[in-house]
């Protein structure tokens, strides 16, 4: 991370602190931290950007009530911890930040924890992002890497080059989470294929898919982390590589596929950096269950939660086109879901050598 960026973050944090102390000492008024509200009720679909963006609802965090003072204290403590981290020129995961700021509040009789759990401290880190306007990767707070990449692409991380094509038939690279330090050096692939799970990715990679179709294989291992999303976006928008996404044929999997394409409610403030609106969600469609004759034994019965989710999705503006409405109706009708792994029932190579090429051919990618 450049020392310039580092200094910028430190400066912003100091500014915030200074403002608060001036409010208190000179203005003698309650300091207020203004930040956009995060979450479901402040997420707006932007037709123009084709992604979820943050609305204009604000929250004011101020130590003016018994309820709000812990939050206020948490934000400031986290901001101070971030500054310390940068002062020491170190990196930390979000869990590391949780531990670094862990403490008890109160005396023997009224003791409680400063953080109830890591979710609280994660929220505080988000708040620091919002207050500073700088994503956490850029102030060296990262998460555990879990995204994987494999294929003809070279990354530069710090001073080292990672060639993801090396041995790409038998292994994948973890996508570094300190994305601020990662540059894409060279991409030789024709397109990028993102799958939901690493198990599926391994199967496809082993089949020689990468070499055969000159593709980059990626996965977020479930919910994609920010680094994976950013990498997908960069490949699509900076390197002009088409992106296709495959996830399980259930509302949950569809949700994950859509993270890449439209973003998420909890990170809607950062969509501009994370979302790849041009990504195409190709599968697995609910209709594929029947078109590819997934045997009944490999299908799963939808839970109530799945049904509710699907009903919800049907109303979303980004799923209004006929194709998706048809798919969702089919699901609500049949109440059956299916994982990509179910294709193994047709043979271990069926997914990589039959299903995926067929799907890609349909959109003319290969």
């Amino acid at each position, binding site marked *: 991370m450049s020392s310039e960026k580092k200094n910028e973050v430190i400066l912003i*944090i*100091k500014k915030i*602190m*200074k403002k*608060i*102390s001036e409010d*208190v*000492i000179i203005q*003698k*008024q*309650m300091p207020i931290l203004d930040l956009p509200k995060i979450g479901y009720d402040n997420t707006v679909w932007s037709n123009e950007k084709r992604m979820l963006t943050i609305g204009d609802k604000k929250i004011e965090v101020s*130590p*003016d*009530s*018994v309820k709000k*003072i*812990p939050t*206020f*204290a948490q934000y*400031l*403590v986290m*901001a*101070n911890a971030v*500054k*310390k981290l940068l002062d020491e020129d170190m990196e930390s995961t979000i869990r590391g930040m949780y531990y670094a700021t862990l*403490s008890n*509040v*109160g*005396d*023997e*009789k*009224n003791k*409680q924890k*400063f953080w109830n759990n890591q979710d609280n401290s994660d929220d505080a880190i988000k708040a620091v992002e919002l207050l500073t306007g700088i994503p956490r990767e850029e102030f060296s707070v990262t998460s555990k890497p879990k995204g994987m990449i494999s294929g003809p692409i070279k990354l530069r991380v710090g001073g080292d080059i990672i060639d993801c094509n090396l041995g790409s038939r038998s292994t994948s690279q973890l996508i570094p989470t300190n994305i601020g330090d990662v540059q894409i050096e060279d991409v030789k692939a024709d397109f990028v294929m993102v799958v939901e799970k690493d198990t599926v990715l391994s199967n496809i990679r082993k089949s020689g898919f990468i070499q055969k179709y000159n593709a980059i294989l990626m996965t977020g291992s479930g919910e994609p982390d920010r680094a994976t999303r950013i990498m997908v976006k960069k490949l699509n928008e900076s390197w002009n590589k088409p992106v296709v996404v495959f996830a399980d044929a259930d509302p949950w999997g569809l949700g994950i596929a859509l993270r890449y394409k439209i973003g998420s409610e909890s990170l809607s403030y950062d969509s501009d950096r994370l979302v790849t609106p041009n990504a195409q969600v190709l599968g697995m469609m609910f209709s594929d269950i029947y078109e590819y004759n997934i045997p009944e034994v490999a299908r799963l019965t939808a839970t109530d939660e799945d049904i509710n989710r699907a009903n919800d999705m049907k109303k979303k503006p980004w799923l209004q086109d006929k194709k998706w409405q048809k798919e969702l109706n089919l699901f609500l009708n049949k109440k059956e879901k299916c994982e990509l792994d179910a294709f193994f029932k047709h043979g271990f190579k069926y997914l990589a050598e039959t299903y995926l090429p067929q799907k890609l051919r349909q959109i003319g990618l290969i």
Partner: protein
Amino acid sequence: MKSPNPATSVLKQDEQKPPNNPQQSVKMDKHKIIYNKKAESEFFVDNSALAGFTGERILYMAVRELIENALDSCELFSILPSIKISLKTFDQSNDLWILDCEDNGTGISSDKLPVAVCSFLTSAKYMEKQQRGLFGVGLKMVAAFSTKDTDFPIKVWSKSMEEAGEYYFELRTDIGTNKPIVLLKKQVNKSESHIDGPSGFRIRVVLRARLVPITKNKIYDYVTQTSIVNPYAFITFETDDGMFSFDRRTSIMPTPAKEILPHPSDMDLQTLKKAISKHSGQKITLPKILCYSFQKLSYEKAKEIISNADLDFDLKDTKISFSEHDLIKIVNICKKTKFQNPNTDHLSPIGQGILTIGMMSEYTIVSNKNIETSSDNNKRDAMMVNEAKKLNHDKEDKNVSKTEASNIGVSKPNFSVRVLQPVLTAYTSRTGIINNRPTIIETGLAYGGDINSFKLFRFANKIPLLYDEGSDVAREVVSEVEINKLGITKKQAKEQFSTNKESKRDRVIEVLPIHIFFHICSTKIPYKTAGKESIASEGELKSYMKSCLSELYRKLSTQIRKELKLKEAENKMKLYKHYLPFIVSAITDSLGIKNSNLDDSFSTLIEKHLTKKSIGVGDDDNVVNNSEPPHSDFVPESSLYLSNKTVDLEKKKLTVSKNYEDIGDKSIKNTKLDKALSNSSSNSDASLIVSYKSKEKERRHKNDKKIKKSKKN
């Protein structure tokens, strides 16, 4: 039991003189059973346990008897009692103690005094009315024990209302004959007078006894609790631990009990015969005798009873001598007849006003160790401050305010008198028939304030019961009345009040800072044992007590819920204050400066803000009905407390605005302190100011209360 034919044998016994002279029956015949007559004094000394005088309890019982006699003697003529009692080591190597008790009661006239002090079963209290002492045993027991165990005379000074001048006696008991031995009797000159007032009684005895710590505590408890139910008495109690004084908090005394006629449903052969013999010389018919001798019995009703009894003699005959056979018929009819409930003039309950005063200012003797545990919160706060000076300062303050009663020099510092002031009290009572006698059950409840733990107080005829609490009916009542009548759940009670969350006490009520008082007045208290320390669940007594306690809970429920809210808010507020250091250190840390007045300004700001808020909230919380009449269900003190709170809030506002102006000044003063503290990155600096301030407020609050209180009295 006595004889298969009661009608005749009882008569005979009455006519006969007591059994044969022992000398006569002493014959050298082996098979002859020897019958001896024992003097009452000898009997009681041999069976001292009957009167509670057992081993360790001797001093306790002696103190108790003397105090009870003193109070009875004062109350008889509504004299405000002033009792000075002292128990001190006299000769440690021989376990000798000097017990001295002086009262300002009626005194005992000089001709009766030796008998009254020394002869067992001599009493002025043999009548149907509520008194502490009943049997004419207690004082005699003290005298007999002194005679038995030591060679010191019993010294008595008495100034009776009936005669002029003060008399001084030196007495001993002739235990063999139940007669007093007067060693010295003289009229005391005014200059040597031991009794200041117009009348009074003072006794000084030497007793041999061991005083184990448990008994000592019981003696202290006894005096303490006596003072609670007799707030109109001024008591000083001097021991080797120092002088404890219990102030008189009111000049109102309970109406003295009046002697009454027995109730006809309680009639038996003995009472009937007594009634008839009382009127034997007069020319009165039997129905008249009945209606003169029993309450709730009209002439008509008496005639009806006698006709129902189907007696074969002329009702108008006034000279007839009745056979027991006839009389028992009358008794039988009376047992079957329904009468009006007996009146309760012979009882002297404490009453709402007096008990409330007692509860509002509980004088207790505490050892310093206890004080420390009770002021635990403050201590902990002070620990946070981590400044020994402040700790001392606060403690001193506390002691000044709490022990103002112990204005007389305390020779040893480890015991002192503390006045507990609850924030809420309630009172309720019931009257019923238990054990065939009218019984008044009074219950009181004191909550919060200086009271920080649960305690059950039991009284019978204004006498504190201290032993055998576990087997007392009151204990059962407390366990059986559900706490939810207080309007709070067990969970809430545990969460908000339990200091030790792991404690597994099943009776939730015991985590509450609550004192429960039961007082039972009757001429026949259903004691469980001869020791008279616990009350049995006789008849409907328990259900009366339960309904009393339920009612008290209900009365307090609104208030307690409010208290609970306050407590919750207070707990939250405490947490709130603990967050401040985090904020302050985050700011100063990241700015890399030691801003000396940030914490100060911050806490001022927040306090000001919260005050504004809590006044807003407080408005509907403090709906104080000051126009409440003093004898309504709710005790006036509770509203007093609440109104105090409002005053306090106003005060708070004032101080805050004052602080506001002072900030500049203060920041200079605090710079040094802050420098010292901010070096360690710990966050205690802000809490220091906060806790200090809150303490200041607390103190002010206390003082306010004190002032109000004293004005009131």
